[in-house]
C-alpha cells in the first residue's frame, strides 16, 4: 500500500447527521483510583480511559467518587448556573452593541467551577479566556467582570484589554493573554517558585486542545517534569478550536491526556461534563502536587456548545444541533439530576435559583452600565494608556502623554 498524506477532518459538517455512537463511553465508576504518588508508567491506562463518576441513573459511583456533602454540590451547581446566566446576559448585551466582543463557556462550566473548588484559595490559576467560572467561583465581583467587558470608567484594567481578558491578583487569577498557550509554561515557573519559597501553593493552568500544539505546551510538560513542579496542567478538549476539529491537533491519534506519559507525567482523561469526576481528578492531582509528586496532565473531555466567540458563526463548519447529540450531556443538568436523585434538590428549587441569579445578574448589569459602555463612555482617561508600561514612567512617555493631551505645540 502506498503511503499517503493524512489530512484529518471533522466527523460531521453542516447538513450532516451527527452520530457519536462511535465514541466509547466507559461505564461510570469502573476506573481504579491509584495512589496519588503513583509513577506515570504505572497508571498509563488512565489517559486512554475516561474517568466518570456519575452514572446513567445520576448516582455517584466507584472509587473516584469524591463523596462531597450536598451543600458543596449545591455551591457547585450555583456557580455553574451563575456562570451560564452571566454568559447569556453578556452575549445579549454584546448583540445590543454594548461591548465589542464576548466569549461564552457554555457546556464547559464544570471544568472551571469543579476544578476551582477542588484546589485551595492560595493556589494560582493560569486560565484561558474560557474559564470565567474560576472568577465566579472565587467570588470576584460580577460588577468588575462586567466593567472589564464594557471597558468603562469602572474597568479595573483601565480599558487595556479586550472583553473577557480578566485579571485579579487578589483572587490569584493570572492576567489572561491573547497569545494562546503562553500561560501554560509560565504556570510551571510560578510553581517552581512556590517550591523554592517553600510555600504549599500549587499552580493550575489551562489550554484548549487546539493550543496543545503550541511549543508552550511542550515547554510546560518538559519543565514541570524535569523540576517536578507542583502544577496541574489541564487540556480542555471541547472538540473545536474555532472551526478546526480536535483531530487536527492530533486528537484522532492518541488522547491528549496520553501526551504526559512520554514526559513521565501521569495523565487523567476525564468526563469534563461530570462535575464529580472533574472535581475528583483535580483533587487527586492537587494532592499529588502538594506531596511532592509533581505535575499531572488532565484532559477534560467536553464540548464547546457556544460559538467560539461573538465573531464566529459555527453553522459554517459544524452541524448546528451537534451539541444535542453530544453523548456527555450538559454539566449543569447532570449535577442538578444528581442532586434531585439524592433528594437534595427539585425542579422548583432549580427554577427559584435561576430566577434569583438572573435577578442578581440584571441588577449588577444596571450598575455596570451606569459606569459607562464602550461606545458611549465614559472610559478610563486616555492618558491612562501611558501608565504601567514601566514601573516608573520614562521621560519619553511623559512627553508623549503631553502631546496626546495637546499640552505640547507639536501635538497633532
Amino acid at each position: 500500500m502506498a503511503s499517503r498524506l493524512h489530512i484529518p477532518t471533522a466527523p460531521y459538517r453542516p447538513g450532516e447527521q451527527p452520530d457519536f455512537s462511535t465514541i466509547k463511553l466507559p461505564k461510570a465508576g469502573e476506573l481504579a483510583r491509584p495512589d496519588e504518588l503513583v509513577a506515570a508508567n504505572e497508571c498509563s491506562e488512565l489517559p486512554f480511559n475516561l474517568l466518570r463518576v456519575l452514572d446513567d441513573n445520576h448516582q455517584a459511583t466507584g472509587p473516584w467518587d469524591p463523596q462531597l456533602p450536598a451543600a458543596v454540590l449545591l455551591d457547585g451547581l450555583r456557580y455553574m448556573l451563575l456562570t451560564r446566566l452571566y454568559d447569556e446576559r453578556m452575549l445579549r448585551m454584546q448583540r445590543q452593541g454594548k461591548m465589542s466582543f464576548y466569549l461564552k463557556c457554555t457546556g464547559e462550566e464544570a471544568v472551571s467551577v469543579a476544578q476551582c473548588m477542588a484546589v485551595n484559595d492560595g493556589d494560582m490559576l493560569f486560565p484561558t479566556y474560557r474559564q470565567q467560572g474560576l472568577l465566579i467561583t472565587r467570588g470576584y465581583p460580577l460588577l468588575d467582570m462586567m466593567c472589564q467587558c464594557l471597558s468603562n470608567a469602572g474597568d479595573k484594567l483601565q480599558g487595556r484589554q479586550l472583553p473577557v481578558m480578566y485579571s485579579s491578583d487578589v483572587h490569584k487569577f493570572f492576567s489572561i493573554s491573547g497569545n494562546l498557550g503562553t500561560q501554560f509554561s509560565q504556570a510551571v515557573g510560578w510553581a517552581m517558585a512556590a517550591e523554592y519559597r517553600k510555600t504549599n501553593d500549587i499552580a493550575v493552568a489551562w489550554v484548549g486542545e487546539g493550543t496543545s500544539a503550541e511549543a508552550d505546551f511542550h515547554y510546560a510538560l518538559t519543565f514541570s517534569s524535569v523540576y517536578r513542579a507542583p502544577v496541574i496542567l489541564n487540556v480542555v478538549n471541547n472538540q473545536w478550536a474555532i472551526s478546526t476539529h480536535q483531530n487536527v491537533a492530533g486528537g484522532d491519534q492518541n488522547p491528549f491526556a496520553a501526551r504526559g506519559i512520554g514526559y513521565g507525567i501521569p495523565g487523567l482523561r476525564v468526563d469534563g461534563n461530570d462535575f464529580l469526576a472533574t472535581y475528583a481528578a483535580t483533587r487527586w492531582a492537587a494532592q499529588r502536587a502538594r506531596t511532592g509528586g509533581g505535575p499531572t496532565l488532565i484532559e477534560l473531555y467536553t464540548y464547546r456548545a457556544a460559538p467560539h466567540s461573538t465573531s464566529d458563526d459555527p453553522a459554517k463548519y459544524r452541524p448546528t444541533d451537534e451539541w444535542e447529540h453530544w453523548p456527555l450531556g450538559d454539566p449543569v443538568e447532570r449535577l442538578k439530576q444528581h442532586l434531585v436523585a439524592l433528594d437534595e434538590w427539585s425542579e422548583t428549587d432549580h427554577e427559584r435559583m435561576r430566577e434569583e441569579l438572573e435577578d442578581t445578574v440584571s441588577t449588577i448589569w444596571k450598575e455596570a452600565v451606569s459606569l459607562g459602555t464602550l461606545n458611549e463612555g465614559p472610559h478610563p482617561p486616555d492618558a491612562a494608556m501611558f501608565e504601567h508600561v514601566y514601573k516608573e514612567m520614562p521621560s519619553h512617555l511623559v512627553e508623549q502623554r503631553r502631546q496626546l493631551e495637546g499640552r505640547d505645540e507639536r501635538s497633532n
Partner: protein
Amino acid sequence: MNAVINLQDDRSERRTAPEGLRPETGSMSMIQALNSAMDVMLEKDPNVVIFGEDVGYFGGVFRCTEGLQQKHGEDRVFDTPIAEGGIVATAIGMGVNGLRPVVEIQFADYIYPAFDQIASELARLRYRSAGQFWSPVTIRTPCGGGIRGGQTHSQTPEALFAHVCGLKTVMPSNPYDAKGLLISAIEDDDPVIFFEPKRLYNGPFDGDPDKPAVSWDNHEKGQVPVGHYRVALGKAETVRAGNDLTILAYGTMVHVALAAAAREGIDAEVIDVRTLAPLDIDTLCESVCRTGRCVIVHEATRHCGYGAELSAQVQEHCFWNLEAPIERVTGWDTPYPHAQEWAYFPGQARVAKALRRTLDA
C-alpha cells in the same frame, strides 16, 4: 503580588566560596565582572535565581556563571532544558511569584524561540494587568561578531528589543559598566534585556583583528569594585570629550569609534549609549547640538537598525544645530558571514571615512 517575601535563609552551610573565584585585585575581565555582579546579587537577595543552558554545573559556555552553583546552591543556579521559550516563560512565572530570575540565553542568535514570551508576555504583563502582575526578569545574552562565529553566533538583534515598549534594553562596553549595569538590571522591577558583546568579554577590541588581543588588565574600565555598586540604567556616558563631532556608539563599537577618531586625529566626542531603551536623549543631544555633527556606529544591520532611531531623534532635537548630514556606519544588510567577517564588521576604516565625510560636509 511581589510584596517583600521573607525567606528563611537556610542555605548558609553551602555558602563557602570556592577559592580564587574573585580576582584579588580590582582588575576584572567582563566575564569576571558579570560573574561578580551575579555573585553579589545572589548573596544580597535570596529571591535571585539564575538559570539557563549549561549555566549551572559547568558555569556557562562563556564561563559567566562559573562557580556560582557551587557557592550558592543547586536550587539557585541551575541548568535548564534547551528551550529558550520555556526558559523565559518559567522565569516570568517565577517573577510573578516573588522571585527575581536572571536567565541566560546562550547566544543572542537563539533568543528568537523566546521572542513571543518576551515581546507579548514579559514586556506587557504589567500593562495588561494594570499593575497587578509584573515580573522583574533579567535576560542576559552574548551578542556580536568578530569571533568567527558565522551567521548563527554573531548577531546583535538589539533593535528588535529596543522597539518593544515595556522592555529595557542594555549593552555595556566594558567590565565596570557591565557589572554596575547588570546589578541595576537585576534590581530593576521592569524586565531588562542585557546584551553582552562577546568580543569584549576578555579585552577591549578596537576593530583590528590583526593586532594581538589585549586584556582588560590595563584598561581603566577593567578596574572593578569587588562589592555592590550600580551604574544607572537609562544613562549614557561621554567616554571622550571633544569638539569636532559627536559619535554615538555602544558595545564593541565604542572602542572602534575611539580608535578611528584617534587614527584620523579628529577631536571627537564619543558617547557610549549603554542603555538603548529608555534612551538618555538629553546627553546625546546636548553633545550634538554643541558639535553640530553626528556619526552613529553600530554592528547590527542598517535597515531599521537602532541607528535609525538615534538618527531620527537627533534630527528632531538638533536639526537647527546640524552642520552636516547625520551618518550611520553599520553592518551591511546581509546575514553575518563567516569567511567575510571583517568585510562585514564596521571597522575603523569605514568609521574613519564617515568621520571625514561628516567633517568635510
